[in-house]
Structures are given as C-alpha cells and as structure tokens.
C-alpha cells in the first residue's frame, strides 16, 4: 500500500491535457510525504479499527446464515427489519432512553450543584471534590460488586439502614419495575463527580467583574445563577450532555455484571442486546444491524449538538 495512493487516485484518472495540474499535485504530494509518513501509524489503526470496522458493520448487516453452519448469503435489509421487529431490541431501546434521561439529568444537576458549592478552593472543598471524584476512577465492575451488596434483599446495606423506615421493601435488582432505576443510581453515583470537573472549569470562565457588578446591583444568588452563571455555562452544558449521552449507551458494564439484562429484560440496554446477539446467539447479522442503528442514532445526535453549538457561537 503506497502512502500517496489515496491522494493521487483522482489524478490518475485525469487526462493528459491536465498535465500541469498533475505535476503540481505530485509536487505537493512529494512535499507532503514526511507528514503522511508520520500519520501512517495512526491512520493504519484508524483504518482497521474505526473506519474499516464501520464498513464491516455495514456489510455484515446485509448478510445472514440460514442455519448456523450454512454459508452467509445476501439478505438486504432483512436483518434491520428483523432487529426492528424484535421486541427485545425495541424494549432495549426504550430502556436505554429511560436510562439515558434518568442518568443524564440527575447526574448533570448534581454535578452543577457540586461545582457551584465547591468552586471556591480551600482545604475543605478540595477534600470534598476528591470524595465526589473517587467513583469516577474505579472500574464499573468494581462499583457493581459494591452495589450488588448494597441492593441485596434483607441483609444488604440499603435494606439494613432504611428497612426500618419502609413497611415493604422492593427487591431492588429482582423486581422488573425497580431494577432499571437501581442500575441508574450506580451510574449517577459514578459519573456526577466527572461532570463536576467540567462545570468547575466552566465556572472559572465566568468574568469576575460581571459578578461584582451583579453584587453591587444587589442580585441575589438565584438571579446570579439564572442570568450570569447559567448563560456562561451553556457550552459546558452542551459538551457534558454529549458525553453523558455517549456514556448512557457505552458505559453499561454493570448490566453485564449485575442483572444480565433481567429480570424479564427490564434492564436490557442496546449494547447488551448487541453483545447477546453476537456472543450468545452467534448472530453477527443481527448484531451488526443493531450496531448500525445505534451508530446512526448517536451520529445524528452528535451532528445535531455540533450544529447547535456552531449556531450559538455564530449568533453571539
């Protein structure tokens, strides 16, 4: 594979009269050669594991085996329609939407509260920041191991301490109506401290003199938040929302460890569905179709958020 190949390709098809164009092009390619060589290692891995992977998802989604041992045959959009018709998939999408909203909103709200309360740096606030940040560092699997006991019926931490307050306790991870919310608690606990960091950084950009002017004008804490701080934090919000949404799709290790999507599929999320199709049912066609749909949804969302961000910057 030659380095200059992708850049030179369109030139190769152009005819002789455009000779000078070709010359200029090869000249610039030659001048660019060192840069291409430096980029080559990264581009190889991007090609294999990002763009090549996307291409393979696209192709794999179009093929299917009639029986587990039969050769693959082209089935067009059958996999996509099979996935869309699968109640397990639509259920996982609905669960994932609930999960995304139910984790993003509270963790961002908490992150903002933490950042506002701890913006002033002193020994106490540094210690509190560290405490709130600890869950971010640990593997989701370790968090799951701890919360498995917290949610344990009867003898678990939660039942041990709040059992005296409530007459009837739900089986936190065993009740299909409750399990998804229990899972969300872990995510909120784990991520709020991460998003706090971005709000802390964002708060430093709030101009000191504007705040002072607000003090002089007698603006109360709520007014300062509403009219000065929140508008200033808009880019931070947008950025954190994108990350939190990505996390809601990708960071689902606790489902693997704690519930396996159960009870009765109530905690099945999209990535777990993909995993099940690929690893447990060996159905690469359906797994790829589900991956494709997820990628499309996420990219649409990202494009939308970037457009909003660009519009905002252009407007101000």
């Amino acid at each position: 594979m030659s380095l200059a190949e992708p850049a030179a390709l369109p030139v190769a098809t152009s005819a002789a009269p455009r000779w000078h164009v070709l010359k200029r092009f090869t000249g610039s390619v030659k001048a660019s050669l060192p840069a291409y060589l430096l980029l080559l290692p990264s581009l190889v891995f991007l090609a294999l594991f990002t763009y090549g992977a996307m291409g393979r998802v696209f192709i794999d989604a179009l093929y299917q085996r009639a029986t587990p041992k039969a050769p693959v045959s082209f089935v067009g959009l059958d996999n996509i329609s099979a996935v869309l018709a699968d109640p397990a998939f639509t259920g996982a999408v609905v669960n994932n939407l609930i999960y995304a909203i139910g984790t993003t909103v509270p963790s961002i709200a908490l992150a903002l509260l933490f950042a506002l309360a701890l913006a002033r740096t002193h020994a106490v606030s540094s210690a509190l920041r560290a405490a709130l940040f600890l869950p971010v560092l640990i593997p989701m699997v370790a968090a799951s191991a701890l919360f498995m006991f917290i949610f344990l019926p009867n003898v678990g931490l939660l039942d041990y301490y709040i059992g005296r307050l409530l007459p009837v306790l739900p089986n936190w991870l065993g009740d299909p109506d409750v399990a998804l919310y229990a899972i969300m608690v872990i995510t909120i606990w784990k991520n709020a401290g991460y998003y706090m960091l971005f709000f802390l950084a964002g708060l430093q950009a709030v101009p000191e003199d504007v705040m002072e002017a607000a003090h002089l004008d007698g603006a109360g804490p709520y007014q300062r938040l509403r009219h000065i701080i929140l508008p200033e934090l808009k880019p931070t919000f947008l950025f954190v929302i994108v990350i939190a949404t990505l996390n809601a799709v990708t960071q689902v290790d606790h489902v693997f460890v704690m519930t396996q999507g159960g009870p009765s599929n109530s905690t099945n999320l999209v990535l777990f569905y993909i995993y099940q199709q690929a690893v447990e049912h060996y159905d690469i066609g359906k797994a790829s179709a589900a991956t494709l749909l997820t990628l499309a949804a996420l990219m649409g969302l990202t494009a939308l958020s970037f457009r909003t961000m660009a519009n905002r910057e252009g407007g101000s």
Partner: protein
Amino acid sequence: MKLIDRLYREAPLATRNEITPKLGFLLTVLLAMVWLIPFLWMIVATLRPASDGINLMADLMPSLKPTLDNVRDAWEIGDFPRYTLNTTIICAGILLVQFVTITLAGFAFARLKFAGKTPIFYLFLMQLMLVPVLLIVPNLSLVAQLGLYDTLTGVMMPFFASAFGTFLMRQAFEAIPTELEDAALIDGASLLQRIRHIYVPLSMPSFSAFAIISVTSHWNDFLWPLMVINSPDKRPLTVGLSVFTKTAEGTQAWGTIAAGTLMVIGPLLVTFLIFQKRFISSFVTSGIK
C-alpha cells in the same frame, strides 16, 4: 454554622450573608458523605470476621475484632496477582504504542503543511465520536482474523491510535517556539531527531496528562477484554473481578467480595490520592476519552 462562615470569609462582602449558597454547600457535604458510603462499607466489610454473621454484614460500624481472613480468602480464590499483571501489560502496551503514534501524528498536525490536512484532521476528529466499544462486533471478528483472539495484543490493538492523544500533543507542540527547532535545523538535525530531542522533552506535562487518562480508562475496560479473552490466565482485573464476584456471590461471601474489590481498586485510589491535582487537571482536559 460558624465553621461554614469561616469558609466563606473570603467571599465578596455582598454575598457573605446569603443563606442559599451555604445551604447548597451543606447539601454537598451531606451528599459527599453518602458518596463515600460504598467505599466505607468495602473497608469495614473487608475487616469484619466471619463470626459476625450475615446479619451484621451491612453494619458500617467497624468490628471490634478486625481480621484479614477475607483478604486471604480473596487472594486464594481469585488469581489477583495474575490479573494485575495482565492489566498492567495491557495498559503499558497500549500506552507505549500510543506515545509513538500520537507524537508522530500530533507533530504532523502541529508543524507540517500537507495536502489533505483538513480532511485527515476530520478523520481523526470523528474517532472521538465513534467510541471503540460500539464497534466490538466487527472488531472482534477482525481480531480473530488476525489470529489475535484470546491474546493480550488483541485486547490492546484497537486503542493503538488515539485521536484525543493526537489533539493533546498537537496542542502541546504548537506552543513550543519554532526558534528552538530552527536552531536544531541549522545544526543539521533530522525531522525525527528534532521531534525526539526538542518537542518530546518539552511536552512532558501533556504526556503525563495523557498517560493518566489512557491508563485509568484501559485499567477499567471490561466489555472488550471480556469478548476477546477466553483463557482464565489471560483475564485482566475487571474480568477477573467479575468472575470472582460471581463465584463468591453464590456462597454469600460478601466479606470476600469486598476484599477482592478493595484489592482491585486500592492501587488506583492510592495513586489518585497522591497525585490528586494531576489527575483532576488531566480529566478536565479529557472530555471524551
């Protein structure tokens, strides 16, 4: 309340008597304590003797007769030294290759002019969105085709290129004055020599920020190694811990689970507490890992 007043003594005069910020602060203190409860339970339960019985397992008051039995049991049931070694190899391997790829690519974007710079830049940018974990299915089949199924190299490979690292290094290299490079150029230093002896030594803070992000995120990876690794002796810590938890859960050995979890996250927590400032500023730059 006196204590809180002291914390606010440097706040602007006009706001010093406001009650809302203080209530917010109190709420945060309360929540920070709640946030620490799982860690507190982990430590207390690790040291609790089995004779306390299952009914006292949740008690956050430490036992008066602390024991290391749970740590010993966890050590014997799980193969933690092996898991730790595997995770260390994975993290170190990824980081070493990433250092090379992001230095070279970062330099190209920071200092060189070349045809197609903008489209190639966007190719990198897009990778931030196309999170590798979403592409587990096609990447698993590729790793299998390359003959790397059930190998640590297979676990590492998808992460060898890092768009985030490339952008970080580009930013660091752009901040270095070109005069330094010009001087080396006059002395006849080659491109790679200039990168090696001028750019890299001057960008150490960025390298360490990137190292922190890279190592913590791959230390915590679970799904991808779970799919690639099959043999028990190649499991990284996360996969090992999940298997260990499954085994110990069956016997209701919660003290052992707490001890195992402590062994897995202990090193991370200690490192964080030592290099707290470094960690926090690195994570702020990370955004998307």
